């Protein structure tokens, strides 16, 4: 599904990412890489998973859209450095022509050296034309004339259907000058905002993104 904001076409992908054709930018929020490994390291016995499906999916998206730039909207890594970091480096090394940018999130505590060595640029926000800013969270005092695309919340949508059934699905969520991306990582939870009735929800249903008007 494509929405247009300030003359910018925003492709909402069912793979829980955004593609900006004009800039050839792929935007991915809240991957939380290494989350399960971090748990294991701290003594929580989740199964050891050898294949990282998030990285595999990211690779596929890059191959499909062939972007010039990939922007991670923060919380790329869940916590401290672990072997998932190596897997991440291996994947981005496959694409030397692409510029990788991280707008730092509250979970990103890995030392900046790691990223500079990996040629990942760290910024507070990535600003596009027409005052569209990509960042992890809203700034403390948002600029009234800026449009923000952010992550952090892991938004979900609760669908009430006939026969009193409910479903929880990930969604893109827009309210006013803010568009919140769903979390890209497989091992992240969903947060259903109380206020989701007020904004606009673009809900991911299987392989499609659907606009739900209230």
């Amino acid at each position, binding site marked *: 599904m494509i929405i247009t904001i300030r003359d910018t076409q925003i492709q909402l992908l069912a793979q829980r990412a955004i593609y900006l054709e004009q800039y050839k930018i792929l935007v991915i929020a809240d991957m939380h890489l290494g989350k399960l490994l971090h748990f294991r390291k701290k003594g929580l016995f*989740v*199964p050891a998973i050898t294949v990282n499906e998030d990285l595999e999916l990211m690779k596929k998206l890059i191959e499909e859209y062939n972007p010039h730039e990939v922007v991670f909207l923060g919380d790329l890594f869940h916590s401290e450095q672990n072997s998932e970091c190596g897997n991440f480096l291996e994947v981005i090394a496959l694409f030397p022509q692409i510029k990788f940018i991280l707008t730092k999130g509250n979970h990103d505590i890995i030392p900046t050296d790691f990223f500079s060595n990996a040629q990942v640029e760290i910024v507070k926000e990535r600003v596009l034309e027409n005052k569209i800013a990509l960042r992890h969270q809203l700034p403390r005092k948002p600029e009234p004339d800026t449009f923000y695309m952010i992550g952090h919340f892991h938004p979900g949508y609760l669908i009430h259907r006939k*026969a009193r059934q409910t479903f929880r699905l990930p969604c893109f969520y827009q309210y006013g000058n803010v568009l919140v991306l769903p979390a890209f990582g497989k091992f*992240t939870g969903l947060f259903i905002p109380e206020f989701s009735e007020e904004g606009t929800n673009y809900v991911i249903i299987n392989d499609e993104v659907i606009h739900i008007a209230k």
Partner: protein
Amino acid sequence: MNELAEHWFKLKSWEPYAFQKDSWEQMAKGKSGLLNAPTGFGKTMAIWFGILEHYYLKIEPQYTDKRKAKKLHCLWITPLRALSREIHQATNAVSDDLGLDYNIGLRTGDTLAAERKKQKTKPPSALITTPESVHIMLGTKGYSEYFAGLSVIVIDEWHELMGSKRGVLVELALSRLKALNPKLIIWGISATIGNLKQAKAILLGNRNRGVLVRAELDKKIDIHTILPDSLEKFPWAGHMGLTLAEKVLPLIQKGSSTLLFTNTRAQAEIWYQHLLDIAPDLAGVMALHHGSLSQDLRNWVENALHEGSLKVVVCTSSLDLGVDFRPVDTVIQVGSPKGVARFLQRAGRSGHQPGALSTIYFLPTHSLEIMEGASLKYAVAKGMVEERIPFIRSFDVLIQYLITLAVSEGFSADEIFQEVIKTHCYESITRQEFDDCLLLIYKGGRTLDAYDEFHKVKIIDGLYKVTDKKIALRHMMSIGTIVNDAMMQVKYLNGKYLGSIEEWFISRLKPGDTFWFSGRSLELIMVKYMQVIVRSSNKKRGKIPSWMGGRFPISANLGAAIRYTFKEVHYKAIQNKTPEVQFLMPLFNEQARRSYLPKENELLLEYIHTKYGYHLFIYPFEGKLVHEGMAAILAYRLSKIKKSTFSIATNEYGIELLSDEKIAVNELSLEDLFSTKELYSDIQEGINTMEMARRQFREIAGISGLVFKGFPGNQIKAKHLQANSGLFFSVFEDYDRDNLLLRQAYDEVFIFQLEIVRMNAAFQRIETHKKVLRSLEHLTPFSFPLFTESFREKYSNEDWLSRIEKIKQQLEEL
């Protein structure tokens, strides 16, 4: 005769009961056993003097060297802190009365660190404590030395512990303590339950030939149902019962002290507020008591009850157990008590003197529930007391226990395996399963990755040990089997603590909003960390928090009693019917007029179309738990005919299947629908147990230490370690299907949620019944309560993708 007891009873000018003498005699012989006695008749003393005698005859003479430190002689385990305090006071009084040097310590979650330290360096003769505290002691270095002199262990209110995972904690603690002290004398104290013999066997072990001592005390119970003035104005559905509140006032006035029991904490808050509204003069002589209120407040209420300065206390199961309040002479039960045993226990809160009459009033909350009054009388008269079903194969508790031992002194796998398979809970586990548990805590499960970073338990000199201090601390903070949602502390600005509320309730409030809690109207000032700061408000209206949990289903016994009551509706002459049934006859006649009134060998089904969809109502009268499983099976069988999705509501009396498409039912297909043929395979294949297991997994993840809620007050951050159990469940489902804890979730679903045994019996019963199907235009007295039930389950045999596809179509049609 026990000399100390003889002396003390003479001092008090009391006469011991036969069961007390019997217990002393058995204990003097060094026997273990189970004492079956109700509260309030000296059960504590029946055991306590046995303990004292054992000490002064067998142990004390060995302490010839006065400088040698004495060892802990007795552990007394109770399920409740309030009860621990009570026993602590009563037993201390005995030592004081008789001038004994037998000193008694109290150790619960409330005990201060300094006091705990003192208890460790200089052990008291006896320690009154809880199952969780015993495990914390087992998680402390030097425990084997500390317990080396332990001679007697008492498990108080064993019937209460046995049916929960706290009972498993007791079994495990016993297995370790018995290994340390092979001659350990074990005594359980239990109220009457259906499976008393099993209760004894679990506690003492199959090989221990302990005795069963029964207090044959005749207790008379008088049951009254509070009837509304007219049936027409009484609601068909609902569960608050406030319409009858006016009827309660004269009872409160008449009695000296009244306990008014509700089934949930929210209901207690609402009743308290409502009684104040309709009888403002109760202010000052009415109090509220439930599990979320602060300990201080509860203590205050309990003391006031003792002194007789309160006319009425609105309470929940928090006052079911333990402590006796002599001034209480009236008990009111609001809504179905759900079980015969619970009803008896509550009735027993009044009339404590032997031979005195216990009076209990049953206050129904909707019209059909009135019938339960008659059923309860029948069940009580027939002694239909429920069994407590013990947990088996609880790998979550086993894993917690193993880590506890690894934190303190370390353990040898072979030794502990031999100990745990002697318990009832783990007698059927294999060495392979035990080794799988070890593998989880040692390597984080079966893993192929050599560079794995898992660290929890290490093997040092053949012993499994935890060496990481943070892991040890995190574990000690989360010992126990009661898994709660994150609770927020409610405090006044000056710091006075009122109690705790679940986080999600507070998240719905804004500063300035008013809510009712602990019987007061409070204004939210701010939320800071895990604290909710409030001030008193004089606003009359406010939101009332509802707490999760606490919705237990009706028992099999009460279900049977209710079905028995139905016979009366059809067959007895009107003058021979119980007052409840007589009163309800107009409702039954209305049901017959609108639809049909089933006989006891018939099953009624009602098929009704409303704006919500197509409803199929079924009335087996088997209790909510069985209905839930049965509903899922019926939904499966219906959807085998035609793929569909149902929303399911159940209550104690029946089932509602709601679909957005027509439901394929006719009189012919009904026989197959309720057939016992292929019942088991239909359960296996048909029920989408995954969602049920996902919910069940929440507790398992908490107990086994997967979900860590953080430290109290969040002073130390559990950085990046928080995740909900649903995430872990999905990961296990996707990557480790054979995981023991995952399998346990499914097993618990089968045993406790689906109640396989009871459900099978229900299908067998119904198979022989004549099915009566009515297609109707309007709701009926039977269907209305189900229709309004807001808690709903979902059943579908359409796979997730096609369900979502269907939603997509529906959305696109908008």
